[in-house]
């Protein structure tokens, strides 16, 4: 400690000599940071501004931001009228909607994954059994061959199971997660062995071990996995596009169809209102739980 203080003072002379140069350097880095941050933020800022333009006022040369006619929610209203983003009551029941479908398959995926991933990771950490390594490697194949690229053979399986155009079809290929299993296994390995062993001596059953010993200290990892899973599935397009035709279209599909409606033409305010309608929940959650989200995504790349 003392040592570092004395060396620091002897170094301060060199530091003073390069002080003015360093200050210019800091200004340069700050300027570049601000410039790049603005460049990165422009698309979302533009999206938000344009979504408040009236749909009747098209964009034009040098007129791509606020409308002269002021700020209005008309574009949101039109977007909601044009496409079934939200459910409405039909014969006493809620109709199918993009929001309903997305929520359905995202929550279904999450609920099943949390169970399968926890159970499998627990088995791999807690027990020794023949074939353990082999099973583990077989599961890890999913990391090497992402499910997304198997869309053609998986489509055949979904058709054969009779699941075409259901939210279950969108969710089911992701019910087993190699990534989640691996992540939870790493977390469970950090749980102190003494805790596990003393619980075993007290006669705890396997589910008591899992619930009382393994899960409490690893809840953060499970939440992180949940956040990554929800954002991944909320945002996915290709697989839902392939296995749904009408009834079970999710939000991303809704946006795609919206951009392709011919009578909309280049009504950017409508399209941007639709964009914000589909990204809003995740986006607001992200802004509120920023640190947790970023930390979760860091965990999504395990070492």
């Amino acid at each position, binding site marked *: 400690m003392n040592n*570092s203080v004395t060396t620091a003072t002897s*170094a301060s002379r060199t*530091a003073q000599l390069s002080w003015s140069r360093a200050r210019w350097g800091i200004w340069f880095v700050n300027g570049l940071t601000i410039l790049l941050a603005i460049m990165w933020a422009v*698309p979302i800022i533009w999206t938000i501004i344009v979504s408040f333009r009236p749909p009747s006022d098209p964009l034009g040369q040098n007129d791509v931001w606020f409308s002269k006619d002021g700020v209005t929610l008309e574009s949101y209203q039109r977007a909601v009228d044009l496409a079934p983003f939200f459910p409405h009551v039909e014969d006493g029941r809620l109709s199918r909607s993009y929001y309903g479908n997305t929520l359905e398959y995202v929550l279904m995926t999450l609920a099943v994954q949390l169970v399968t991933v926890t159970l499998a990771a627990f088995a791999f950490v807690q027990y020794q059994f023949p074939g353990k390594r082999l099973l583990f490697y077989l599961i890890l194949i999913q990391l090497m061959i992402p499910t997304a690229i198997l869309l053609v053979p998986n489509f055949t399986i979904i058709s054969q199971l009779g699941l075409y155009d259901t939210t279950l079809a969108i969710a089911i290929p992701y019910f087993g997660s190699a990534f989640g299993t691996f992540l939870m296994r790493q977390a469970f390995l950090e749980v102190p062995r003494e805790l596990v062993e003393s619980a075993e001596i007290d006669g705890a059953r396997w589910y008591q071990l899992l619930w009382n010993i393994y899960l409490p200290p690893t809840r953060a990892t499970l939440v992180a996995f949940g956040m990554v899973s929800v954002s991944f599935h909320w945002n996915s397009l290709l697989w839902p596009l392939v296995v749904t035709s009408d009834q079970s279209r999710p939000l991303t599909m809704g946006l795609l169809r919206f951009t392709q409606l011919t009578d909309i033409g280049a009504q950017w305010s409508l399209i941007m209102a639709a964009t914000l309608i589909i990204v809003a929940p995740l986006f607001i959650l992200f802004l509120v739980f920023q640190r947790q989200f970023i930390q979760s995504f860091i965990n999504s790349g395990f070492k």
Partner: protein
Amino acid sequence: MTTAAGTHPLNRRKKINLLPYLLILPTFVFIALFTIYPTFSVLQSSQEYYHPNRPNRTQETDLNLPGIEEASRSIRGPHDVGLAYFRAMLDPSSPEGEVFFQVMGNTIIYTVITVPVTMLLAFVFAVMVNRSLRWIGLARVAFFYPTMLPLVSAATIWLFFFTPDYGLWNVALKALGYSGPQNWIINRSLGLWALMIVSIWKNAGYLMIFYLAGLQGLPQDVYEAADLDGAGWLTKMFRITLPLLRRTTLFVSVIAIITSFQNVDHAFVLTNELVTGEADLLLYEIYKQRFVLGNYGFANALTVVMIVVLLVFTMTNFYLSERRSDEQ
């Protein structure tokens, strides 16, 4: 009873406990059904000619059907054609070969450009954001928020930016003195660039957080020692930071490459009007062959190629990272 055995590992091994197998079963069933089985079934179906959209009639003249030399066979199929699709892919004069060469060319250009550029930007962002200034949190959000957007939404926003005349991308380029073509999504090479720009913009912030985590894990005493030696900013960057982040860089490159292979949602908005597929990426072409053109066999054969490419890539990477960790 199981708990009593649990305290004695030797006892535990004697009689096979079914419980761990039952716990792994749910995960294993779904991975077996939707990852392992399709990986093998596609090897089989890539050897089958099948065009269900075509009429079930025989063709007298040669229609250039892969693997079907003799005429007078149904142009609908199915026919067993062996490895004909793979042979056709390697022959640029066949229709399949032409598509294959174009798509592989696009995929390679796309990967070779987006991966290093995104990684470089991610590193620069991480260095910028890894400072304790009051406003730096805003910059971090600005770089990271595209990660939370669906790729299709990102592409929709950028569709406007690429609009001729008043799209902000074109306006910005014009201000910088560029006077080239403005219709970025109708033109082959520009269409590919449009896809790359959106991908870079969306992923730089995602990769940034791994570098950020890496930077925050670096030992501070090394930098203090370097300061004492009067080492400059550049020296520290190239002699300390980058070498220490080698494992992070390797890891980030894996994520970047896998991301670039499996995310093609932006193509549905940006280049879907290029009907001849001038800017198609591999996964998008697989989708198009199977679900738009109804060329089942070719789509399956392309899936096999994609699996092989990914396996070769992950194996190489695994080998490299094992060897590097041995060195350390």
